[in-house]
C-alpha cells in the first residue's frame, strides 16, 4: 500500500497522471478515483452512455501500470461465467490417468486449485501484485439481482467462497470499479458498499481538450468546432444526446474524410457518427445543420 501512497500522493497528482495518459478527468472524478484507490473502496460510476465511464477504469489501470480485468455483465450471468469454473476435461483426464496408474483418487484430489479455471472476478483476486489489479465490472445493471448478491462478498471482503475449496482471499485486494447505465435501480446493499460518482458531460473547454487528446494530431479548430456543434446538439430535444464518445467519433470521421473545417455539407455527410436515431437526425435537420456547425 505504501507503494500506492507514493504513486498517488494526492488528488491533483492522480489527475495529472491521468491527463498524461490521455484522460482528462475533472476534480470530481479524480477525487472519486483517488478515494477508490487509497481508501480503498469499490467505486460505482454512473452517467450517460458515452461519457467515459469505462475509459476511466482503463486509464486508471494504465496509470497504476497494473492489469485491467474486465467483466462485462449481461442478463443471466452467473458464477460459472464471472467467478470460476472447474476444468471438466482435465478432471476426467485426471481420473483416467489415476486409473491407468492404479491409484485411487479421492474426490478432493479433483477439486484443487489445479482444476480451477479462473473467470474475471477470481483472476482479479488471484493477481499476485505487488500493485492491485483494476477490476472493472461493466454495466452491472444488466445483470440481475442474484448476481449483485454474489458480488457482496467480493466487494466487502475481497474474497470469494468456492464450496469445494473454501474461501479464497485476495493476495492484493483489487481496485474495483463498477459502472451502471441506470436501466434499473441497483440494490441498496450494493450501493452501501461503494463510493459513488456521477460523470457529467464536460464543459466546452474540457470537451475540446478531450477531443483533441483523443484524436491525436487533430487541428484545434476542428476539435473546437465539433465540440461546439455537439454542445449545440445537446440543447435540442434528442432521444439520445451525443456524448463525448460521439464527439470523438465525429472528429475522427471528419479527419478520415479530409475535412479540416466542419461545414454544413461536411456535417450532412458525417452526422451518422453522432446521431444514431433517424428521429434525432430529423430534429437536427429541422433546426438546420448550418446552425449546428455554427454557420447560421
Amino acid at each position, binding site marked *: 500500500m505504501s507503494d500506492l501512497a507514493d504513486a498517488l500522493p494526492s488528488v491533483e497528482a492522480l489527475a495529472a497522471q491521468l491527463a498524461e495518459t490521455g484522460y482528462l478527468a475533472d*476534480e470530481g472524478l479524480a477525487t472519486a478515483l483517488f478515494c477508490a484507490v487509497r481508501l480503498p473502496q469499490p*467505486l460505482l460510476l454512473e452517467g450517460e452512455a458515452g461519457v467515459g465511464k469505462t475509459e476511466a477504469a482503463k486509464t486508471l489501470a494504465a496509470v497504476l501500470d497494473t492489469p485491467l480485468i474486465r467483466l462485462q455483465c449481461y442478463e443471466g450471468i452467473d458464477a*460459472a461465467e464471472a467467478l470460476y469454473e*472447474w476444468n*471438466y476435461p482435465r478432471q476426467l483426464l485426471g481420473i483416467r490417468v489415476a486409473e491407468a496408474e492404479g491409484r485411487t483418487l479421492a474426490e478432493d484430489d479433483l477439486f484443487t486449485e489445479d482444476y480451477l479455471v479462473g473467470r474475471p472476478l477470481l483472476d482479479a483476486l488471484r493477481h499476485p501484485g505487488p500493485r492491485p489489479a483494476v477490476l472493472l465490472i461493466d454495466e452491472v445493471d444488466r445483470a440481475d439481482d442474484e448476481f449483485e448478491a454474489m458480488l457482496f462478498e467480493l466487494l466487502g471482503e475481497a474474497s470469494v467462497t468456492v464450496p469445494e475449496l473454501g474461501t479464497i482471499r485476495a493476495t492484493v485486494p483489487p481496485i474495483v470499479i463498477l459502472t451502471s*447505465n441506470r*436501466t434499473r*435501480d441497483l440494490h441498496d446493499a450494493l450501493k452501501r458498499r461503494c463510493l*459513488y460518482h*456521477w460523470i457529467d458531460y464536460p464543459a466546452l473547454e474540457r470537451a475540446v481538450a478531450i477531443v483533441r487528446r483523443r484524436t491525436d494530431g487533430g487541428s484545434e479548430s476542428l476539435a473546437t468546432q465539433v465540440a461546439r456543434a455537439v454542445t449545440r446538439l445537446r440543447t435540442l430535444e434528442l432521444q439520445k444526446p451525443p456524448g463525448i464518445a460521439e464527439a470523438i467519433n465525429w472528429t475522427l470521421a471528419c479527419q478520415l474524410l479530409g475535412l479540416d473545417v466542419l461545414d454544413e455539407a461536411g456535417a450532412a455527410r458525417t452526422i451518422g457518427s453522432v446521431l444514431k436515431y433517424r428521429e434525432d437526425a430529423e430534429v437536427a435537420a429541422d433546426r438546420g445543420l448550418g446552425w449546428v456547425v455554427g454557420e447560421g
Partner: protein
Amino acid sequence: MIPTPVSDVDLAEVAGRFGFLLHAAGIPVSPERSGRFADAVALAVPAGLDGLYWLARVTLLSDHGQVAVFDRVFQQVFGGLVDLADHRGDRPEDPPPVHTRPGERRPGGDQDEHTRSASARPSPVPMTGRGDDDGPEQETILAAVSADERLRERDFASLDAAELRHLRRMLAELRFAPPPRRVRRTRRDRRGRRIDRRATLARAHRTAGEPVVTVRRRHRIRPRRLVLICDISGSMEPYARAYLQLLHAAVGATRAEAFVFATRLTRLTRSLQLRSPDQALRQAGRAAPDWSGGTRIAPAIAEFLDRYGRRGLARGAVVVIVSDGWEHGDPAELGEQMARLARLAHRVVWINPRAASPRFAPLVGGMAAAMPHIDAFVSGHSVAALDEVIDAIHA
C-alpha cells in the same frame, strides 16, 4: 474559505454532524459513509472548498438524484461560514396536503358488461352496480351484501376515504400475471437441451469416471416485467388514489415498476416498496405539484422512454398506461411517442376509466392518436373492471 483548518477540528464529529444534516434533509447517510468521508478527508487533505465538496459527494451519496439536496446542504454548512449546530434539523418543506375530492358520480349503465367478465371471485350482486345512487331504499339492500361485493362495481371516482382503505385489501388480492419469457438462467430439467457438465461429472465420480447419467438443464421461464405509468393530472384526480393503490399492489405482488406523471414524470417504484400508497402519493405530489394543470401525456411518455424505457426498462415488458387520454398538447406527438413505446414493449395496455361511460368513443385528440399503438384498451374503473385489466396484461 473554511472557518478553521481541517486538522484543528474533530474530523469524526464534523463528518458525523454533516451526515446528520444530510440525513435530516432526506439523504440516507449511514454512519459507515460518514466514517468513510472522515477517512477520505484525512487521506486527501483538501486544500479548498472544492476538494472538500468532491470528497464529501463521492463518499456520502449513492444516487445522482441526491446531488441537488446535497449541494444545498453543503452550501448552507460550508458555503457561508455557518456554524453547523445552527442548522440542525433542516428539513425540506412539508408537501402541501393532497385532498381527494369526491369526483362527479357517473350513472351506471356499464354494469352488464362487467358482470360478464371472467372472474375467480364471487360474481357481483346485480343490484350493487348502482350503489352510488344513494337512495335510502337501496341502502337497506346494500347492507345485506358484503363490503367487498358492494365495492366491486363502484366507480373508483366515487369512493370515500374509508372505502379507499378497504379497496387496498381487495387490490392486494389481484393476481398480475404478465406473459412469460425465456431467460438466460437455467434450471435442472431431465429433458433439457444443455448438458450440465458440473453435475454430470459429479455423478461420473460414482461410476468410476464414466459419465453414465447426463444431467441436463434448460432455460428458466420468468414473467415479463410489468411497468405501470399513471396519469395524476387534474382530470384524473378523482381516480388518482385508487390507481395509486393499484400501483402499490402491482409493485408488491410482481416487482412491477411504477411511474406517475402530471407535468413531469416521477418514478415511484421505490417509495411504493417502502411506504404506504398515501405517503407515496404525497411524495408524487411534491415532485409533480401541478395537480390541476393540463395533462401533457406525450412529453411524459417521451421522458419515460428517454430516461428509462430505451435503456432497458420497457424492452420486452408489458407497459400499462393509466390515463384519460385528454392530451393538451399535439395529438400527433402522442402518436409518435406511443409508436416508440410500442416498438420497445412486448405489449401496451391502456386503462382509461372514462371509457366506462357509454358516451365515450376514442375518436378525437390524443386517445385517437394513441389507439393504433395499443394492444388492449380497457376501462378498469372499478374492481370488477380490473379483471379485464388482468386479462389484458396476461394475454
